[in-house]
């Protein structure tokens, strides 16, 4: 079975005139767990590109491999075959040390559970990647990032003194602060109420529009996916489709229609419940 034979839906076409340089690319990427009878194919020869200054959402049912794809592309996990490039760097040949350095210098992360260090202030958390690298932050850039996420008067607070939305804004600022080539978000709004989630997604979209950042986000929420420029759909370890300039309704439509072919659970049929996947289980 190939992706070409899968049902396709195109509510939008690739926008013309946008930069087409590629920030990260996976080619024939496979990830296989176990051997023999217990073998599980998490990713099956996936090829996908993430272009610069583009906001991509990766969607798919539970077990579709969306998180695995992100982890492999972000250099957090190893893969079985194929290739992953961040800019000009091929990740497959890198040792742990080089991978760590790559993540530090080229990649930003936003996690579902915020993952701030409780002992550090908001500002210290934001500059942590630069501190690790032993670099000074670009003050002007840092200021504009802080300005954008609206944390100016919260910089001295510790995470425990901040609300969930504020903590995630700190995490967004941390990801942006070191001017990474690409930012990966793993369900960045999964632990937030809808208003805080909208705020965070707004910052991410702004960072792409105004700061020309590249953002890749795994989500199961059609509303969150609607903030992206493009949605990549995964099922059974394969890319089954993609959608440009998505709307929440179009994404939901697709998921509902797609669920006719693949069993993704009854909950996906209810439009009022964007989560068709148990919270906390993203892959």
């Amino acid at each position: 079975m190939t992706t070409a034979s899968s049902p396709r839906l195109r509510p939008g076409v690739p926008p013309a005139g946008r930069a087409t340089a590629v920030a990260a690319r996976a080619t024939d990427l496979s990830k296989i767990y176990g051997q023999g009878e217990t073998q599980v194919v998490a990713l099956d020869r996936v090829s996908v590109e993430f272009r610069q200054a583009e906001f991509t959402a990766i969607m798919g049912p539970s077990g579709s491999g969306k998180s695995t794809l992100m982890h492999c592309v972000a250099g957090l996990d190893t893969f079985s075959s194929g290739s992953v490039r961040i800019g000009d760097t091929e990740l497959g040949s890198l040792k742990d040390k080089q991978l760590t350095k790559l993540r530090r210098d080229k990649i930003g992360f936003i996690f579902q559970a915020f993952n701030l260090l409780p002992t550090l202030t908001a500002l210290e958390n934001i500059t942590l990647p630069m501190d690790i690298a032993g670099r000074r932050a670009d003050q002007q850039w840092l200021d504009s990032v802080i300005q954008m996420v609206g944390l100016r008067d919260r910089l001295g607070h510790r995470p425990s003194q901040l609300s969930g939305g504020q903590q995630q804004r700190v995490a967004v600022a941390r990801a942006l602060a070191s001017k990474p080539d690409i930012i990966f978000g793993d369900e960045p709004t999964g632990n937030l109420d809808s208003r805080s989630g909208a705020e965070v997604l707004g910052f991410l979209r702004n960072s792409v529009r105004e700061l020309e950042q590249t953002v890749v986000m795994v989500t199961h929420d059609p509303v969150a996916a609607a903030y992206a420029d493009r949605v990549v759909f995964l099922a059974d370890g394969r890319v089954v489709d993609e959608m440009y300039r998505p709307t929440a309704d179009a994404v939901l439509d697709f998921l509902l229609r797609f669920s006719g072919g693949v069993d993704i659970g009854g909950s996906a049929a209810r439009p009022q419940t964007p989560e068709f996947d148990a919270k906390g289980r993203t892959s």
Partner: protein
Amino acid sequence: MFRTALRNVLAHKARLLMTVLAVMLGVAFVSGTLVFTNTISNAFQNSSAKGFDQVDVAVTPESQEDKGNTVGKTPELTQALLDKSAEVPGAASAIGVVDGFTAIADKDGKLIGGGFQSQGGNYWGDKDPRYPLAEGSAPRGANQVAIDSETAERAGYEVGDTVRLSIDGPVLKPTVVGIFTTDDGNVAAGGSLALFDTATAQKLFGKTGTYDQIDVKAAAGTSQAALKSALDDALPKDLIETTTGEQLADDQAEMISSQLSGLRQGLLVFAGIALFVGTFIIANTFTMLVAQRTKELALLRAVGASRRQVTRSVLIEAFVVGTVAAVAGLVAGIGIGAGLRELMGTFDATIPAGPLVITPGTVLTALAVGILITMPAAWLPGRRAAKIPPVAAMSSLHAQATAKSLVLRNTLGALFSGAGVAVVLAATTMDGSSGQAPMGLGAVLLIIGVFILTPLLSRPLIAAASPVLRIFGVSGKLARQNSVRNPRRTAATASALMIGLTLITGMTVMADSLQQGIDKMASSALRADYVVSMANGNELSPDVDRKLRALDDVTASSPLRNAPSRIDGETEYLTGVNGSVIGELTDLPLDGGAFRVGGTQVVVDDDTAKSHGWRAGSSFTAHYEDGKAQRLTVAGVYEGNEMIQGIMLDNGTLTPHLTDPTDMRVMVKTADGTSEATKDALEKALGSNPAIKVQDKKDLSNEIAQMFTLILNMVYGLLAMAVIVAVLGVINTLAMSVFERSQEIGMLRAIGLDRKGIKRMVRLESLVISLFGGVLGIGLGVFFGWAAGELLASRMATYELVLPWARMGVFLLLAATVGVLAALWPARRAARLAPLTGG
């Protein structure tokens, strides 16, 4: 529930191993101590009981108290009394016993045994029932001796060899004619025994015609008690005392066990420390185990387990761990007990052979200690476990550290510490013996206080280290913050190390200061080049001084002759010196008058002068041993020290009143000062006597130093235990930190901290905690060392506080090493954590 608990025990092997090890070490120490002391006291008791086989009733002189102005004398056990004893109804036979110090030299001229157990005595008649001959015959006359078989074997002497003996000075060279076996406790404990015929022994020990003791053997059918009352009736009651053989054996057994009780208590104190420190580790481990299982325990609660059941499951786990550890500890302890006996053997302290004694008491104590320490230590974490809400099963978060306020704790700690410092300071103003108890109490209060306060202290002390940590960048910064994140846990970990280092430092400060004081005493008060004395502290014959004085090299010499007297109805010991040269041999600072000794002019040390209210120019009457009285005048008052004190008068005045003059030491000044050649010459002049020590100032202070060093090394060895336990504690705490922060560490890895950075972070945290404990311990140790020194100083004028900086540096380094070593495994574990992937 029990099965669940048991599964848990087996599921976390590595961590449990550490808990088991911690409990085991403590238990091993306790049971080892008990096994060792039981074994040797049993062996001594057996041998001492055997030693009294031949005695049914012992007749000894009743010692007379000093009364009024007469020096009390010990009545003599004459031949007539012996004969009378043998004829008492129910008596089978009677043996007269004479004994005294007799040093035997080995073939190289070296003293056999330490000198303290070098005994001599009489061989009764042709066949002494006390000493069955293994070889040869009974000694006869001045030139024959019999020696015990162990000494013979040790030195390689055989019948026919000539041995060199010394009793109080002159060297004797009799021939060995017999080798005997004996149950004598002293011999069993590594001493030597040389026997002469009765007349020779009486003459050598200065007891011509008399005995030290009469051993009466009962006739068949007569009980010891009956014989005792018969003897009491027949002999003059006011002069003698009778004791049954059973009583003697009991007395000796009691004496031995009281001598051993000091050792036992000392060892048990260290065992207690090891266990105390171990308690925290156990508590920490269980806290960690519970934290790790939050979800699992919450699940148990969610599916219907009650709080009590959860607590019980943790306690059952603790019980299993405690039992296993206690049994392992007991086995290890038995090994330690056996090992200690062997070790004592290699130090020339022979312990009588006997089976390894493992009493039911020892087994019960070991089990009780192991289980009773583990259960309460696990109880608190167990209760915390029970409080985990069932809903925690649904969340992915671990149990958060309790952020309870430290206010109550700090107040309590401040109160304890304050009281402790106050009591210790008050104790330093008291004099030596009366200050000991309050000082101990204060020390315990202060340690408990500081212990309670450590969470509070951790912040400022660790903050002080931050400039150094900054060098290590993010790793250093995170390490510092992590180490104060759970102040209680950091405190518990650091305390383990603190207690060990407090003791080590305190002991070292005291020992070094004492050493300094002794050096000073030896060098400042003495002008003599050599001091000659007996190996066991016994008295020298006046012959030694005569021989030394006759040497050309010797420019001045004076004995310190010791004689009791009665002054103002009190016993005072007089020191007879060579008045014309004593000023050349000593350098004693004067408090008043002149240092003049001769005729009726005497000098008195400040303490004695004070107690009698004397000043330079005062006079008093001394009643000598022979009952004569003399008016003496205080010419000067000097500052005494441990080596030289008391009333000094000229031997020309004192000696005529003494029946048997003996000298404590002889001080000698030579033309060439101190040199190997001079020392050799002096030794040779004294017949190369094995029992006589010729020591210069350095030898004197070294001799005392040796004693300290031995004690100090023992303490170091024992405290090594506490340090090992502390290492386990630090490992535990770090493992716990790493576990609790695995998500954080994963995040750090994801955003770009490499493995090296993670490792460094954990190591630095470990280092910070260990050094924190080290600094606290050394600080407290110096304080206690100083305080104890203040007590000593009241008894030792030359005492002076010495801070052994180098040694303290080593201790700090030791703390750092503990930190580095303890971090090895947790750091590796942390570095292996995968970069954070999931939410």
